[in-house]
Structure formats: structure tokens, C-alpha cells
């Protein structure tokens, strides 16, 4: 994918960009009522679970404060932390690679796989590899990548896109999942029912042989410890353990923002993450490894440290805390906009409130298709309250809206509609006389509204407002006229 980027540092490439503006995508997704029903059910279930297990901890707020400070301190000393991690990981037999962007990361991974002579790899859920479009790239290079996470498997077999970062197939219900399995799994029992336990078993059978014979695995990482060079993967099903333990070669692709300064930091993160994401006290499995352990697990261990726009996020002093995200998904589960539009409307790998700030921050707001994302919010603040590392998403959304308006102005060199509107607004609201003048035009609005007293379409950029709602026709009389008449009649 080629993009023209303005300004510095380089923006991210890959699956970070909307293929169409959010309002258009959202409009289409809203028509998918099955998906909305599935989403509503799922987000509400997970919300309730989360509240219950969070309520159990008397020190939840102290943990959030610690989590937020840990991430800030990691980001503010990022260069040192990365160098420290590299030193420790290397000392224990691991190999560190650096990738400026998606293309470079993909090439590094391809070359590492080629060195092993393998043409197949197993994968455990990694947002970073989805962001860089690794599977699609490997396919063009003659390498087949098998997703092993149940939800990713559903998405991959269904030739679909993930819609949620934690449960990527959340938009599919059990019957839809069964239908995909029946159609796409060659060895499946044709009498498969839609009971979740039976579906999980079908996935187990389908992937077992792959796990036992795989020579190369690709993973993401939930964190990297700078002080020891340790990597960690948090998961549920055991597919992570399979990928991290059985193959000879393990290649981890990780964003540079995942580094934590100290070993003790995981005592905070591992309390915050599972409770915020699946609403469990702890996820079933967490694996940690430090380079190579002789006689146990992969002996050829690599990590690709990925920038792809992250340093660009870091350069925005208002927006940089978006890098603190630990991908728990709590913000999307509480978001009224996400609940209705679903993850697909956000286009990028990162949906929901965090996606609405992270994607434009990574690519730059000037990337036209992403500039509507910061408006995909009612600024209700639920995401901020839910965020375990206290990212102030609403504040960053407002900041990005400002950036967008500035960038439009720079591009067009003439006042934008937004500028004119705002100027007009201040003229109207600034003086009672002017306001009165405008109110004279009210009957015109009634004319535009027609018989059913609804305005369906506003002109210019105000059209966005009427895309998803009708405006009632203006009243026959303005408040100011009514007030004067009231006074006179007294």
C-alpha cells in the first residue's frame, strides 16, 4: 500500500486506514441487524462480567494509577528501554530485528521463514501482524499462515475481517460459526451442532495435527520486560502455548510500545489486563520466555520490533498516551457508538474508541480516509472510565478534531466550510440584533422541511449531521418573538 504522508515522523502502513470514511462505513454496517444483535449481546455480557471482577478488588484505582504511570515512564524513556530489552534478550540467545514499517517487517519475517525451509507457519493472535497484513503478504510469497485462535480461525475460514480486538468473531453467532465450519473444514463431522463446546472441539481436531507438526510459529506479545528481556503472551485456549512451545523456530512481531521497564510491572498489568478484557480474574494461560531455554521450547527465537507509525504517535504530546494501550478492549465494550456500528466500520485493525484515536495518530490525520474517525464518538467518557491505564480518549478525540480542521485548512488554502460555519456562528450568537435577523429566516426552514415537518438533508458539511438523523422543522415562531409577545400581553 502506498500513501503520501505529510510531515514527520513517517506514518504507519498496512491495515491502519479506513477504506472509506467512517460515516459511510457505519451507515452500511448499521443495516446489518444480525451483527448488531450479536454485538449488543456480547458487549453487554462482557461489561457485566468486567464490573463484577473489578468490583472485587479494593485497590482497583491504585492499580490503574500504577498502570498508567508504568506505561508513561516506559514511553518517556523508550529509547533506553528498547536498548535494554535488546541487550537482555540477545544475551539469552534471542535475535532482535528492527522494522521501520509494515513492509520492512513483512520482509524480515518472510526471510526468517525461508531460512527454515518451511512453507507453513502457525500463528497465535497478534494484532501487530494483522496491522501489517502479514498473512496476505506471506500468501503472495508462497507461505501459508494458519491462525490458531478460535476466533481468528472463524474469521480466516469465513474470509472475513475481525470486528473486535479480543473476540474478533464477536459479530458471528453460534449458528453462523457452525455454518462456516461445515463449509470450510475439510475433515469436519457433518452432524456438527451449534453448541459452543462442540464447535470448540471441532477446532481442536482441525488444528491438532498442525500444532504437532509445525516447524515455525509466529506470535505477538502482550509485553516485553526491559530489565530481563522476557516476553509474555496472554491467552485462553492453549493455542498460544502450542505455538510458543512446540515449533523449532519462534518469530514474535511486537510494537515498540509494548516494553515495560521492570519485572515488577507485570504484577500490575496482569491484574489489570484479564479483568478488563475478558472479565476474568485471570486468563487460563500466560506464557513467558526469555530468549532461548536450552532443551525447552523453540531453539531459534526472534523478535521483530515494529515502529510503523508508533514514533509518530509519540511525537504528539497530547496524543502519545494512546501508546499506553494494553489492548484490553474494555473501551469498545462500553462504547455506545461501537455497540451499534461494530468494529468493521472503523476500517483499521484497531476499532472502537482506541482505534478512533490510534489509527489517525499512527497514519497522520491528513490521511483523508481516517480523518472522520475522531468524530465517531459522542464524547460520553465511558471509555476513559473503563480504561485500565487511564487513557483520556475523549480529550484526545477533541484534540484530533482540532488537528483535522487545521489540516483541512492547510490543504485547501481557503477558509473551510467549518471555518465559515464557526465564524457565522460567532456573528449570530455575538449580538442580539444579528440573531434576530437570522430568526427571520425561520419560515424558510419550515418550507424546506415540508409537510412531515422533518429536514432530511442539510447542505454542505452540515449534511453529516443529517446522514444518520432527521431534524425537526424549526418552529413557526422564535423563542425571542414568543418572549416579547408574552411580555406585551402581561
Amino acid at each position, binding site marked *: 500500500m502506498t500513501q503520501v504522508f505529510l510531515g514527520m515522523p*513517517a506514518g504507519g502502513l498496512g491495515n491502519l486506514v479506513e477504506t472509506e470514511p467512517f460515516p459511510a462505513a457505519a451507515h452500511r454496517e448499521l443495516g446489518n441487524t444480525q451483527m448488531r444483535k*450479536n454485538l449488543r*449481546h456480547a458487549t453487554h*455480557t462482557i461489561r457485566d462480567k468486567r464490573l463484577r471482577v473489578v468490583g472485587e478488588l479494593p485497590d482497583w484505582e*491504585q492499580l490503574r*494509577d*500504577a498502570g498508567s*504511570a508504568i506505561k*508513561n515512564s516506559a514511553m*518517556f*524513556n523508550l*529509547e533506553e528501554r*528498547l536498548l535494554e530489552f535488546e541487550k537482555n534478550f540477545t544475551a539469552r540467545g534471542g535475535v532482535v530485528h*528492527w522494522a*521501520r514499517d509494515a513492509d520492512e517487517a513483512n520482509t524480515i519475517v518472510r526471510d526468517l521463514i525461508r531460512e527454515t525451509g518451511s512453507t507453513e507457519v502457525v500463528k497465535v493472535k497478534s494484532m501487530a501482524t494483522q496491522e501489517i497484513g502479514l498473512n496476505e503478504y506471506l500468501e503472495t510469497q508462497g507461505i501459508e499462515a494458519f491462525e490458531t*485462535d*478460535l*476466533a481468528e480461525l472463524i474469521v480466516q475460514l469465513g474470509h472475513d475481517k475481525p470486528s473486535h480486538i479480543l*473476540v474478533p468473531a464477536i459479530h*458471528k453467532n*453460534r449458528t453462523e*460459526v457452525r455454518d462456516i465450519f461445515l463449509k470450510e473444514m475439510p475433515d469436519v463431522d457433518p452432524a456438527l451442532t451449534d453448541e*459452543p463446546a462442540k464447535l470448540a472441539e471441532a477446532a*481442536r481436531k482441525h*488444528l*491438532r495435527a498442525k*500444532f504437532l507438526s509445525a516447524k515455525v510459529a509466529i506470535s505477538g506479545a502482550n509485553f516485553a*520486560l526491559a530489565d*530481563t528481556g*522476557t516476553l509474555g503472551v496472554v491467552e*485462553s*485456549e*492453549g*493455542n498460544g*502455548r*502450542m505455538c*510458543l*512451545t512446540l515449533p523449532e523456530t519462534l518469530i514474535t512481531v511486537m510494537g515498540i510500545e509494548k516494553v515495560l521497564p521492570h*519485572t*515488577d510491572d507485570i*504484577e500490575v498489568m*496482569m*491484574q489489570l489486563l*484479564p479483568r478488563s478484557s475478558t472479565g476474568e*480474574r*485471570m*486468563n*487460563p*494461560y*500466560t*506464557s*513467558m*520466555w526469555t530468549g532461548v*531455554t536450552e*532443551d*525447552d*521450547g523453540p531453539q531459534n527465537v526472534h523478535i521483530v520490533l515494529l515502529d510503523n507509525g508508533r*514514533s*509518530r504517535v509519540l*511525537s504528539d504530546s497530547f496524543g502519545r498516551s494512546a501508546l499506553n494501550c494494553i489492548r484490553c478492549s474494555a473501551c469498545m465494550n462500553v462504547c455506545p457508538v461501537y455497540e451499534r456500528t461494530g468494529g468493521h466500520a472503523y476500517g483499521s485493525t484497531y476499532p472502537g474508541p482506541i482505534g478512533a484515536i490510534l489509527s489517525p495518530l499512527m497514519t497522520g490525520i491528513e490521511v483523508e480516509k481516517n480523518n472522520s474517525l475522531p468524530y465517531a464518538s459522542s464524547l460520553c467518557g465511558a471509555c476513559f472510565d473503563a480504561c485500565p491505564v487511564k487513557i483520556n480518549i475523549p480529550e484526545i478525540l477533541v484534540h484530533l478534531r482540532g488537528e483535522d480542521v487545521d489540516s483541512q485548512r492547510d490543504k485547501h488554502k481557503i477558509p473551510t466550510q467549518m471555518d465559515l460555519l464557526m465564524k457565522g456562528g460567532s456573528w449570530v450568537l455575538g449580538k442580539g440584533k444579528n440573531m434576530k435577523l437570522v430568526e427571520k429566516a425561520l419560515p424558510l426552514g419550515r418550507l424546506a422541511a415540508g409537510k412531515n415537518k422533518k429536514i432530511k438533508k442539510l447542505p454542505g458539511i452540515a449534511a453529516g449531521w443529517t446522514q444518520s438523523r432527521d431534524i425537526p422543522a424549526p418552529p413557526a415562531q422564535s423563542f425571542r418573538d414568543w418572549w416579547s409577545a408574552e411580555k406585551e400581553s402581561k
Partner: protein
Amino acid sequence: MSAKDEILGRIRTALADAPQAPEVPRGYRTSSELDEEALIELLVDRLVDYKAGVDVIEESQIPQLVADKLAGASSVVTPQGLNPQWLSALPGTIARHVDAPGDRRSVAELDAISAVVTSSAVSIAESGTIILDGEPDQGRRAISLVPDHHVCIVPVSTVVQLLPEAMPRLTITRPLTWISGPSATSDIELERVEGVHGPRTLDVLLVRGM
């Protein structure tokens, strides 16, 4: 310029405003007030919630309980450092395999074995988490992963209430596996289903006086 130099250069430019790293306020709980009985009760409650099997026993009961748990198994693998006494009540009909340095069981062999018995390093009662660290009584990660049934011995002296209490007991650079219940997924309609790729049955023997 190498990718590394370029990325580090970008980071330096991005942080030109030199933001000050905050002190990390560690005001969260770091020590437990529970006595041993309350601790056991809490851990049992969490494990049962995850649908693991749990028995609270004395050390002398280990051989019998291990035999009971493995009643349905046809074969079992153990790490070389496991106390052989613990398997002393197993009937001869159950084939025994040992995974030892220089004499490793292959993945295919492990796949044909029905169960594994290991010890454990540290457990956290509040979250129902058992940590294996690859010591000789726990073995390589593969042996506690591939067989479908895991019988895990947890000495009560290795149980703490809180995660921060577990940290000083861990050697972080060892290969660690944190286990909280049998493998599970919530990927279909967020309904938790036990048993996907990891062992589908987890039996925990919580041993007093050890």
C-alpha cells in the same frame, strides 16, 4: 542508516519536549492478611469456578489421590524430578513414561499419552493461578501441554494470596506457564467453554503440611 538507528532517531525527535517520567505510585495491596485456612478456601473457590477439580489433602494421601485421578488413563508421563513415591499406588496397567534430559519424549509420543503429573512453583489464591517454572519436578513445557489431562500438585506452602506476593518467589527468566483452570475459550458468543487445545481436564491436589 540502519532501521534500528532510524527508529531510535525518530523516538529521540518525538520526545524532544523531554517529558518527565513519573514515579510509579505502588499503593496497591502487596501483602496478605489471610490465615492458611482462608487462603486454602479462597484458592479452592477460584479453581472450582474455573471448573478445575480440587482436593485438599495431606502429604500421605498423594499416592492414593494420584491413582484415583488417573483411574481412566492408559498412560502417564512425569518429569524426571517428580517424587517417585507419588506414583507408588498406580496400578501396573497404566503405562509410565518419564521425560528426562537426554531422554526426551517426542511430541508424537506425548500426543499418545493420556495424562501428566507435575508439581508447581507458586500459586496465587485471589486469581486461582498456578505457576509452573520448569524446575525438574515440573519439567519441560511440552509435557504439561500435550497430554489431555493434567494432575498438578500444589503444596500449601507455595500458595500466596496476591500476585505481588508471588513475584519475589519467581525467577522470571525461566520459561513460565501460568495456569488458571483448564484451557477455555469465550470466542463464541462470549460463552466460556472449557477445553480447547490445552489439557481439557485439570485436577489440582492441594497438599497441607508441604
